[in-house]
């Protein structure tokens, strides 16, 4: 038996050993089109829907919808849903669900409010108590799901009911705790000074440009496949235009009566959410822990055999989700300047799940990004806001939002089937 008779494998289509062919701009676009055709659409449907919706509302309500006041309003309206949705992405990536996130945010908001008013705590103490409550809730749910082994649907449905009761117990039926602490109220009602807004925008754009160019250069130098430079530059320019355009709009006076009160600047909640999104996005895409989350969602048994503590990963994801719910509860309390027994109830949770799924996060696990929550949240906020401006009742708004969610879930299911058929994950 001699090894020399083992024929060499065919050498034609190799991008592996050192001699990589870098894709051209056209090829990169071609690859993207192929990816979308293959069923991996990512956020594309949501971005298209967003564009269509914005266009439609601008045409139908040209004087109010695109006004600077309303644009700022959109950010503040969407903040709560987007924050919960970002946390839900972690749970959805596992292939699990957290139905209790809405009322978890309510519980945390109620803790914040009672801390501030009933106990007269300083804002930072009340804030810390609310966030700690979120972590405890997450650990509890995580334990029930990962260690006890109750399906997350059932666990969080039970928690949904129980937390609704907890909010009621804390606030008292028919009660309402108002929030007057200036710091907490500022979160959702005040703006960043215009100059600081510009400074942050420029830093953000430069940081993005710097890091993506550096990654590109590093990959080229190591002989790894990198996106064509043109593509990198196009992305940088597009992001800069969006960021600078938004800051320019929000830095205009938008008060209806500028002589009495001036409203100017980027809402404080915007940099807050951007920061949260950057941190969570970093965790998901750049750390081993984030990689393990995707792995659990893809094949939990394989992940276990790879020596990863699957239970710990699940616990951590549920904890992150509830922690984000706590932040959302604080933002909701700040926006309403009060907490009532229905805090975190009604459509909050469904809007949040809808935001993640509309943005392209799969309900089947293993696929999703933080930016999905932002894009999907924008779709929901625009529908909610635009239809209210058009004078539709809450009933019609719910029906439309429900239909959009069903459509997004259908896109998810169909693209998954298609991905199976074309062999993409």
């Amino acid at each position: 038996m001699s090894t020399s008779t083992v024929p060499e494998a065919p050498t034609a289509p190799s991008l592996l050993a050192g001699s990589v062919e870098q894709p051209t701009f056209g090829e990169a676009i071609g690859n993207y089109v192929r990816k979308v055709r293959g069923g991996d659409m990512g956020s594309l449907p949501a971005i298209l829907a967003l564009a269509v919706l914005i266009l439609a509302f601008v045409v139908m309500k040209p004087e109010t919808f695109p006004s600077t006041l309303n644009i700022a309003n959109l950010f503040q309206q969407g903040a709560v849903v987007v924050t919960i949705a970002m946390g839900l992405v972690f749970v959805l990536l596992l292939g699990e669900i957290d139905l209790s996130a809405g009322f978890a945010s309510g519980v945390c908001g109620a803790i914040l409010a009672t801390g501030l008013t009933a106990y007269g705590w300083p804002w930072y103490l009340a804030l810390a108590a609310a966030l700690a409550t979120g972590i405890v809730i997450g650990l509890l749910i995580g334990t029930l799901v990962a260690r006890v082994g109750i399906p997350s649907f059932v666990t969080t449905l039970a928690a949904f009911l129980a937390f609704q009761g907890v909010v009621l117990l804390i606030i008292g039926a028919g009660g309402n705790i108002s929030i007057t602490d200036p710091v907490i109220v500022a979160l959702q009602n005040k703006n960043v000074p215009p100059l600081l807004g510009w400074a942050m925008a420029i830093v953000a754009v430069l940081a993005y440009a710097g890091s993506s160019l550096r990654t590109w250069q590093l990959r080229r130098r190591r002989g790894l496949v990198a996106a064509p430079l043109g593509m990198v530059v196009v992305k940088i320019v597009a992001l800069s235009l969006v960021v600078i355009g938004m800051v320019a709009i929000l830095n205009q006076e938008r008060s209806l009566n500028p002589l009495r009160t001036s409203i100017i600047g980027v809402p404080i909640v915007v940099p807050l959410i951007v920061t949260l999104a950057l941190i969570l996005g970093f965790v998901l895409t750049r750390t081993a822990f984030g990689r393990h989350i995707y792995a659990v969602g893809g094949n939990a048994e394989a992940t276990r055999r790879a020596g990863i503590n699957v239970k710990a990963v699940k616990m951590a994801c549920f904890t992150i989700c509830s922690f984000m719910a706590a932040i959302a509860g604080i933002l909701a309390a700040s926006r309403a300047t009060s907490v009532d027994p229905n805090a975190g109830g009604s459509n909050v949770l469904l809007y949040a799940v809808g935001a993640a799924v509309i943005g392209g996060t799969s309900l089947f696990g293993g696929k999703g990004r933080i930016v999905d929550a932002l894009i999907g949240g924008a779709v929901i906020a625009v529908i909610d806001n635009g239809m209210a401006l058009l004078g539709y009742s809450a009933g019609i708004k719910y029906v439309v939002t429900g239909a959009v969610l069903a459509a997004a879930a259908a896109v998810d299911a169909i693209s998954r089937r298609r991905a199976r058929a074309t062999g993409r994950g």
Partner: protein
Amino acid sequence: MTQAPDLAPPPTLEVRGGRKNFGAVHALRGVDLVARAGEVTALVGDNGAGKSTMIKCVAGIYPFDAGDVLFEGQTTHISSPADANELGIEVVYQDLALCDNLDIVHNMFLGRELKKGFRLDESAMETRAAEVLASLSVRTVRSIRQHVASLSGGQRQTVAIARAVLWNSKLVILDEPTAALGVAQTEQVLQLVRRLADAGLAVVLVSHNMNDVFEVADSINVLYLGQTAAQIRTKDTSRMEVIELITSGSAGMPAGAVAPRPSPDAPERATRVASATATTSDATTTTNGSTSA
């Protein structure tokens, strides 16, 4: 292949008299195995003979109840998968254990990611993965950044095997790696298995397919009802004899003769091993012609 089995350094893995009971079920009743560096050792036997159990004992999923395990000549006790990994034992399970939603690089490094501080060192992992695949002469993959879901069965096996050799492992155990593959892909995977051994690793290959076994194995270990019937050099045996060992636990009958039902008790085993090796050296030529198509 050069072979100097007797003068060579101690075998990478040696199991002596391994036993394993599951309650009243005597799954392994005395198994012996020698796996040498640079060689493919096939582990064959009928369904339920104990192949998977033996592999799991070596991999540390559950330890042997009795018997000795020697790794590179040293007596060792492997009581967990982590112990096995530490020694340099990697197992490619039959059901693969890959994550479809991750790309090739991510799968190869799953659980042992390279990091720069907190951050994943993507380009280092990608470079290393490309090196390993290239060293295994894998050239059928379009891009190592493609999701594993888009790979064929053979390519997936390749990734699973590459994952196993990434960690300068010394012993790679493959449980029926070609069971679900077509002709061409089986060929690819067998070539890869051969290259692993040629690169100096000890390879244990579990298979039901005699063609595969005779194509790549240097040595064949036959299990029969939880006991080692024989471990024979491939060049000293024939398909007929191995099949006979698998089905009846003994060999050495003239071709065509009906093998008697053996009574499966231990003392007889030693002689069977001896006789099997002694009586079949004439079969060498017939077994080698058909290899490496």
